[in-house]
């Protein structure tokens, strides 16, 4: 019998749907709230009774730690701690995708304001500066010119967190006012959506649904499907939100991979099916 753990910070709509799906499939589910108890670094009882953990903490850091502890206890973690480490850090994701010859926008990494300004000049205008760790489009800046570059770099330099001193400078892709989110469970695409900019602001470029982007389901092209499978295969089967971006000539590239993807806004009516697919995948991994 599958003994499943759900590590989470709170019961987001996705986690509620997963809990419901586990009930429907008769899976014994233990919820591990990451803020509510301390964890032992070896043999923590939270994991000793499990064979699979769904790592869905809202926090990247906590999710990696809990997965690692679960894996140390012989529990299969979805996703694996190593996949999460790669996906949760944009610089590591980009480096990994490049190493695997998976098309992805060009990136330069810099560790000081002067190196960051050099990176921006090398990349050319416009370009995009992102924090290496973070989500929901926070602190993602399109840099149109030298004065904007100086403003963003000096602002980041004044902030206190060590990741603010890492400058991830990415090529700007002139996409068609949308990007693509592909939700994968195991190796199977559950759905693909266009995330469209709907603000009517011609300068807007963030498509994240938390920024008011709209979701529209569509069928992946063969090129895109191949890209998604290549990415999933490289990371190891799991639950991923793979973001694709289209270049002006139409060819797709992987922008980033989300290790604990949300789906309440993107899946629409398919939300219960996606939760079912996650539980079925967890059951299949428990048997392996």
């Amino acid at each position, binding site marked *: 019998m599958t003994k499943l753990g759900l590590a989470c*910070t*709170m*019961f*987001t709509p996705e*986690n*509620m749907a997963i809990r419901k799906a586990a009930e429907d499939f008769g899976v014994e589910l233990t*919820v591990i709230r990451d*803020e509510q108890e301390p964890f032992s670094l070896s043999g923590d009882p939270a994991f000793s009774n499990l064979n699979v953990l769904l790592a869905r903490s*809202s*926090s*990247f*850091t906590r999710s990696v730690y809990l997965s690692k502890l679960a894996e140390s206890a012989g529990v299969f973690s979805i996703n694996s701690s190593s996949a999460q480490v790669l996906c*949760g850090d944009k610089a590591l994701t980009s480096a990994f995708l490049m190493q695997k010859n998976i098309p992805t926008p060009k990136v330069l990494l810099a560790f000081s304001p002067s190196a960051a300004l050099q990176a921006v000049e090398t990349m050319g205008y416009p370009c995009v500066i992102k924090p290496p*760790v*973070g*989500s*929901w489009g*926070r602190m993602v800046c399109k840099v149109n010119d030298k004065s904007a570059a100086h403003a963003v770099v000096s602002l980041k330099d004044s902030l206190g*967190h060590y*990741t603010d001193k890492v400058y991830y400078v990415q090529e700007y892709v002139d996409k068609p006012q949308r990007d693509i989110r592909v939700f994968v469970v195991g190796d199977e695409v559950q759905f693909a959506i266009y995330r469209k900019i709907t603000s009517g602001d011609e300068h807007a470029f963030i498509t994240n649904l938390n920024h008011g982007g709209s979701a529209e389901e569509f069928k992946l092209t063969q090129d895109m499907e191949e890209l998604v499978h290549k990415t999933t295969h490289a990371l190891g089967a799991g639950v991923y*939100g793979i973001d694709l971006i289209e270049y002006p000539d139409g060819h797709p590239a992987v922008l980033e991979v*989300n*290790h*604990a*993807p*949300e789906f309440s806004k993107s899946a629409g009516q398919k939300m219960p099916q996606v939760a079912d697919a996650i539980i079925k995948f967890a059951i299949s991994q428990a048997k392996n």
Partner: protein
Amino acid sequence: MDATKIECPDCGGHKELAPQTEIGQLLNCADCGARLEVLSLSPLNIGHAPQIEEDFGE
């Protein structure tokens, strides 16, 4: 459920809970926007939802 009305711990605003409310469910106070969580149903107990941190996301 013992009660169906909750009081926001921040502003004191009142909200009627839906009958199918579950433990852990997240709520937004309609008056002040505070993010709340259902901690228990019997007795009904509402607290603040975990604060959003820098590394929160997908």
